[in-house]
């Protein structure tokens, strides 16, 4: 187990370093001079050169990389070119929206998907399965912003239960803040749940054909108990894999939903930074997301070992 853990940890760290190099390199290659951008089109070449020196843009590539990477480690991401505030402040402001949103959506998606998968797998080929799978097909096919609009219409405009958009901030109280995250979370969760339910169903069906399911039934356990005690845990590996991927998506890929609901999340921050060539913000947020994805993958890898004892003893 320790060896497994150690190996995963080393792989995760190596990936992180490699990814940081790629992120840094890619942003170096793409055209657009941040110094010129900050000074505007009318600035003279001398002025631009002075600013480039000030910003350290003229130093050798390796030095700039080390400087940047060292800054990341001490959470010093530098200053935003456009907002002229530390990037960390911008990120901090946004992550308190994006992270809870992703977590709520993930929880919702799991809570919906697992029972649907269990239900469908246990009544494979029957009417209930067909209906549930039809619904997930719909969920996979329909884009989440459409769900978002429907939800706004139903719950905000018509029933007036929740606000249609915007985020009051956590300072306004936990409940108002949560309330404004609820609809976006549902809109994000539905398509994810549909995918997850299908994965859970097929993994469960495979497991239900295993010999040990028959052994469990021969013990006298009712079908439902066999499903929960024996089938579900064995079907968790593919489900966990998809969950990991979904979390990464939910954290970074929520830009459309953030726009629909006017949420000040990370997705919008990156989007704005890209249009304004605010490279330092882009770099920082991308690195943050990379780190989050790698951390989630590490957690998924470790949870494999929790689920399956065979992974613990094999190395």
């Amino acid at each position, binding site marked *: 187990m320790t060896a497994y853990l150690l190996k995963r940890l080393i792989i995760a760290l190596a990936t992180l370093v490699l990814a940081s190099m790629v992120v840094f390199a890619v942003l170096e290659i793409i055209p657009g001079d941040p110094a010129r951008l900050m000074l505007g089109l009318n600035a003279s070449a001398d002025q631009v050169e002075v600013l480039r020196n000030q910003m350290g843009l003229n130093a050798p590539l390796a030095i700039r990389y080390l400087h940047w990477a060292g800054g990341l480690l001490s959470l010093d991401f530098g200053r935003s070119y456009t907002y002229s505030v530390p990037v960390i402040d911008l990120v901090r402001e946004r992550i308190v929206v994006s992270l809870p949103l992703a977590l709520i959506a993930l929880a919702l998606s799991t809570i919906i998907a697992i029972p649907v998968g269990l239900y469908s797998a246990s009544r494979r080929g029957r009417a209930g399965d067909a209906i549930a799978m039809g619904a997930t097909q719909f969920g996979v096919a329909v884009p989440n912003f459409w769900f978002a609009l429907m939800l706004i219409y139903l719950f905000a405009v018509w029933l007036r239960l929740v606000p249609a958009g915007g985020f009051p901030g956590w300072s306004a109280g936990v409940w108002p803040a949560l309330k404004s995250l609820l609809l976006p979370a549902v809109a994000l969760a539905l398509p994810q749940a549909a995918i997850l339910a299908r994965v859970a169903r097929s993994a469960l069906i495979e497991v239900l054909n295993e010999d040990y399911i028959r052994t469990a039934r*021969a013990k*006298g356990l009712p079908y439902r108990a066999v499903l929960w005690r024996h089938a579900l845990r064995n079907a968790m590996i593919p489900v966990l894999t998809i969950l990991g991927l979904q979390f990464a998506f939910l954290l970074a890929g929520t830009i459309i939903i953030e726009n629909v609901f006017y949420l000040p999340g990370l997705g919008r921050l990156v989007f704005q930074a890209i249009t304004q060539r605010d490279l330092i913000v882009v770099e920082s947020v991308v690195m943050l997301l990379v780190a989050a994805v790698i951390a989630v993958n590490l957690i998924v890898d470790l949870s494999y070992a929790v689920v399956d004892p065979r992974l613990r*003893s094999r190395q």
Partner: protein
Amino acid sequence: MSLLEIENLSLAIGDTPILKGVELSVAPGEVMGLVGESGSGKSMTALTVMQLLPFAARATGRVTFDGIDILAASEDQMCALRGDDIGMVFQEPMTALNPVKTIGEQVAEGIRWHTRSSRAEAEDRARKMLDRVGLPAALFPLSRYPHELSGGQRQRVVIAIACALKPKLLIADEPTTALDVVLQAQILDLLRDLVVENRMGLLLISHDLAVVTEMADRITILRHGEVMEAGDTARTLSEQLHPYTRQLAQASMHVPARPRVHEAGQGKPLLQVEGVTRDYPGRRMSLFKRATAVRAVDDVSLSIAPGQSVALVGRSGCGKSTLARMILALDRSTSGTIRFRGETITGKSEAELKPARRDMQVVFQDPYGSFDPRQKVEKLVAEPLHVLDKKPAPAERREMVAHALHEVGLGPRDMDKYPHEFSGGQRQRLSIARAIITRPKLVVADEPVSALDVSIRAQILDLFAELNQKLGIAYLFITHDLTVARAITDEVLVMHDGRIVERGKTSEVLDHPQSEAAKALVAAAPDLHRAIARRLQEQG
């Protein structure tokens, strides 16, 4: 009164009839043997009693267990019976246990469910049961996971699950088919003891007539879902009144005719193995200690003459398959040399091995798993032809495939079929056709008949014998089944813990084994003649 009474049981899955009017009964303390070839409906009969049939199956007739009408029983009633009054043991111990739960949890689960006892109480009973089936606490704590146990040990856990609550009836569906003969004998002994201890009824399902004869008081012979013959085991098998019974008995003792016997020492040896050893990296126990290597094959030497048929016998895990892989140059030896037709093949590159590959081919155990299901027979059988120096033209290739198919008793029209269109026996013929298409001098056959029914097995053994006589192919048969070794080989090598511990003429070694390992194998091997004789003697 009977414990289990099956009367006029018919079963259909969809429109396909599986069982037709099956009659069978088991009394308390009695062992009933249910024998038949694959597809005869043995397992379906067992699953009917458990009511664990596939969704689309419909059963009619009458099944009574202990006064309860099984076919009319509700699912709740069945749940109460399963695992409490009726236990079941399955064929494949490697997959019969849940890989993510400890053996303690799995044995205790049924106990807790049926007796509503506390966790501690159930674990206590589970511990006792595991002790009883020969898994003592010191070596097999409840916290062990299935993957940490061998096949035989796992089957003991399955038996512990099935017998934990002292069932009145135990159904064992091919409980030892996946195990080697020594383990088989141990498991059968255990089952016999449990029957005597608890006056348990045992319905023993097997395709192996010898196993059933050793175990069963009465026997029911099933074919195509119908009972062919039923009655006292010794009488049924000694009189062999029913033609199918006779056919089964003869097939299971079949010895193919091989008038010409090749012996070692005639001319130059075809294959020479000298001092071959194979180490595998062992499991690392600590971060700072080097892992000790596992020696799978330990200083083995042997030689095979052209046209000679040699058996390599031993228990599972003794290293026989590893040795075979090195002979086929599919695995590298740690030390030692292997010479084929006088040329060294150890340490050669793939290109240098080409001529040797042409002259040695392999037949595997599982005729289902060894073919790509999406390719046609022509392509599958022609596969080894790529080792020829000159690629044959398409027409020539078809000709060669047709010829190879003819030699194994299949027609040229079979060339355009897919593997799933063939039965198990036919598929094994296909893999033999694939092996002989390059006219090899040596065929290595790894348990080539152990997945086949007895009558098919007899045919395949005949085919091996015929090809040996006609084409002079030498064989290395890897098997744990001594009947096969006796039927088809001139010489036998007994392997144990990576070493060859005994060798000699097949009949001599098997009749008068000298080494402990050979003695154990011979003593454990079920033998139909011996079993019938013993039964008759017991009954006077």
